[in-house]
C-alpha cells in the first residue's frame, strides 16, 4: 500500500498547492489520485481537462498527468475532442459547479446525451469562490451571497438529477466527508464505459466558512449529519443514483470509421 507521502510525490506537482487552508479541492485531488493508484492506471494514459475556477486547479497544475486547462465552462467540449481524437486515453474533467452547470451547463447536458466516455467530477461548493463568493446555479434559495445580499431569489439546481435525465450512464453524489466512498466511486467511474458524473459537495472555508462563521470541521460534520444514502430520510441523498448501459459515442464513431473502410488516423 502506497503511503500518503508517496502518493503525493507521485501524483501532485507544484507543492504546496495554492488552495486555502481547509479547502475540499485538495481532498478531491487525493481521492482521484488514490483511485488511479488503486486501479493501476498509468499516468501517461490519463488526460485531465478543466475550465476556470478553484476546481480547475485540481488538475492544472496539480495533477501529474497530461492536462488541458481551458476556458470557463468549456472543459467538457475540449475533453470530447481529446476522447474522440484518441479513445485509448482516460479523460477526466474536474469542474466547479459554476463552471460545470452555470456557464458550461449546455455542454454538460449534451455530453450526457452522447454518453461519451468521460469521468466528470463536479466539485460543488455552492458558489463562485475564486471570483469572490457570488451566487451560483447550485446556491440554495434565500441564501445570501455577495451578489444576492437580500437572499437568493432563484433556486439551487439538483445537478445529479439533471445529468440523470440527460442520459449519463453513471451518476453519483458524495461529499468531502465521504472520502473513502468518493475514492471508490472515482475508481468505478474510470472503469465504467460512458459518461460518469460524480458530484462532490465541498466546503469552502474562505467564502461559506467566513460568511456563516463555520470551521472546516463544522462543515464536514454538517455533511455527516445532513446526508443519507436513503432518499426517504429527507436529507441530501448521497450514493450512486444511476448505473446503466448505453452506447458510448467515441466507440460508435470508431466503429463507423472501420465499417466505412477507414484506417484510423
Amino acid at each position, binding site marked *: 500500500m502506497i503511503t500518503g507521502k508517496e502518493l503525493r510525490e507521485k501524483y501532485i*506537482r*507544484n507543492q504546496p498547492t495554492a488552495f486555502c487552508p481547509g479547502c475540499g479541492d485538495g481532498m478531491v485531488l487525493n481521492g482521484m489520485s488514490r483511485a488511479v493508484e488503486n486501479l493501476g492506471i498509468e*499516468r*501517461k*494514459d490519463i*488526460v485531465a*481537462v478543466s475550465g476556470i475556477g478553484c476546481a480547475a486547479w485540481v488538475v*492544472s*497544475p496539480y495533477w*501529474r*498527468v*497530461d*492536462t*488541458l*486547462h*481551458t*476556458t470557463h465552462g*468549456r472543459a*467538457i*467540449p*475540449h*475533453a*470530447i*475532442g*481529446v*476522447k*474522440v*481524437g*484518441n479513445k*485509448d*486515453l482516460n479523460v477526466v474533467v474536474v469542474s466547479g459547479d459554476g463552471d460545470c452547470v452555470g456557464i458550461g451547463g*449546455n*455542454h454538460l*447536458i*449534451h455530453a450526457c446525451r452522447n454518453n461519451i466516455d468521460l469521468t466528470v467530477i463536479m466539485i460543488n461548493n455552492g458558489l463562485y469562490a475564486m471570483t469572490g463568493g457570488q451566487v451560483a446555479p447550485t446556491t440554495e434559495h434565500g441564501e445570501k451571497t455577495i451578489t444576492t445580499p437580500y437572499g437568493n431569489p432563484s433556486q439551487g439546481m439538483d445537478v445529479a438529477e439533471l445529468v440523470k435525465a440527460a442520459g449519463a450512464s453513471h451518476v453519483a453524489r458524495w461529499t468531502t466527508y465521504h472520502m473513502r466512498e468518493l475514492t471508490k466511486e472515482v475508481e468505478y467511474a474510470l472503469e465504467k464505459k460512458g459518461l460518469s458524473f460524480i458530484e462532490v459537495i465541498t466546503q469552502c472555508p474562505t467564502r461559506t466558512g467566513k460568511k456563516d462563521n463555520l470551521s472546516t470541521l463544522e462543515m464536514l460534520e454538517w455533511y455527516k449529519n445532513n446526508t443519507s444514502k436513503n432518499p426517504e430520510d429527507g436529507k441530501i441523498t448521497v450514493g450512486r443514483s444511476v448505473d446503466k448501459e448505453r452506447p458510448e*459515442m467515441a466507440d460508435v*464513431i*470508431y466503429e*463507423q*470509421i472501420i465499417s*466505412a*473502410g*477507414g*484506417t*484510423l*488516423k
Partner: protein
Amino acid sequence: MRSPGVYFQEGNLACAEGAMAAGLGFFAGYPITPASEVMHHLARTLPATGGRFIQMEDEIGSMAAITGASWTGLKSMTSTSGPGFSLMMENLGYAYMTETPCVIVNVQRAGPSTGQATKPGTGDVMQSRFGSHGDYEMIALSPNSVQEMFDFTVRAFNLAERYRTPVVLLADAGIGHMREKFTIPEDIEIVERKKPKEGDREFFHTDEKDHVPPMPSFGEGRELLVTGSTHRGDGTRDTAGYDTQDKLVRRLKAKIDDNQQDIIDWEEDSVEDAELVVVSYGSMSRPARGAVKRARKDGLNVGFFRPKVMWPSPEERLKEIGKNSKILLAELSLRGYRMEVERCVGSEKMHVYDRLNSLPTIDMIYTKIKEVMG
C-alpha cells in the same frame, strides 16, 4: 475523398476535399447557412479516410473540440458562418494562446447578427483579425474561386501546422455556393507539425528563429501543462509576473510578424503604371477584375490588386501602390477591409465601392471606376 482529377462542384465541397487532402483527422461543427455543405460532405466522406466527424451542440463546443483533438496529434477543423464565428471567438483566442494548430472555415454571409443567411458578405474581415480579446495575430486566407477553396484549405492546414496556430479560411457565400471547375492535383505539398526531439522539455518556448516550439501530443508521458493562462516555456502558469507575460505575448506575435514573407500572398495586374488600382478580394474580386479588364480595353490606366491572404495584410505592397495610384476598394461590406487599406494608402487616395447583399455587375463597378478617374 476524391482522387486527383477535374471536377465541377461547389466551393464548400472543394473546401472539404482540400481538408481531406491535407490530412484532416478530426472535424467538429454545427449546422449553419451558408457553410453546412462543408460538414455534409465530410460527414459522408471523412470516416472512410480514417478521420473523425462529430456534430457538436454549438459553435463554442465545436471550436473547443477541435482544439482538444489537435492535442491528440490530429489535424483538426471546423466550419461556420458569422453567427457561429462570433461564438468561436473565445476559444479561438485559447487555441492561439496554447499554440494549437487548427483550421476555422468561415463562409461569410450578410450580417450583422442573423442578417441574410444565404447572401454573401465580407463583414467579418476585421473580426477574423481582432474578434477575440487581448493582443494577438491571426492568419486569414481569402479564396475567390472553387479551385482556391481547395488550394487555400490545404494551405490553411499547412500554415496552421507550420506555425502552430489557428488559421481562418475567410470565404464567403458567393464562393462557397458557386459551382465551377476545379482540379485536385496529383502532387500536393503537405506540411506536418514540428514534433519534439529527444530531450526536448519546453513546448511553449523556443530560441529558434521561427519562434515555433515543437508540439507533443497527449499520451506520450510528458505530463503536459497546456493552459490559456500566461505560461512559461514548460507550460507552468504565471498569473502575475511581468517577464512571462511580456515574453510569451511578444513571441506569439513575432511568430506571425517575423514569418510574414512566407505567409502573405497576393496577385496583381498592371499595377506599376496605373492611375487607379482596384483592390478587391473574395467573390467581389471577380466582377471587379472584369471591370478592370474592360477599363483597360477602353484605354483607361487601371490596375488590379487582390490579397489572397488578408491577415497578415500585404501592408508594404499596398503602401507602395498607394504612393503613385488612386485606390478603389471594392468589397461586399461597408467596413470589411476598408480600415486596413486606408491605413496603408492614406485617406486622400482612398475610394470605395461597397455593396451589400449580392454581387454587382461588371458595369456597376466600371461606372464607379470612371467616376473616380474623373
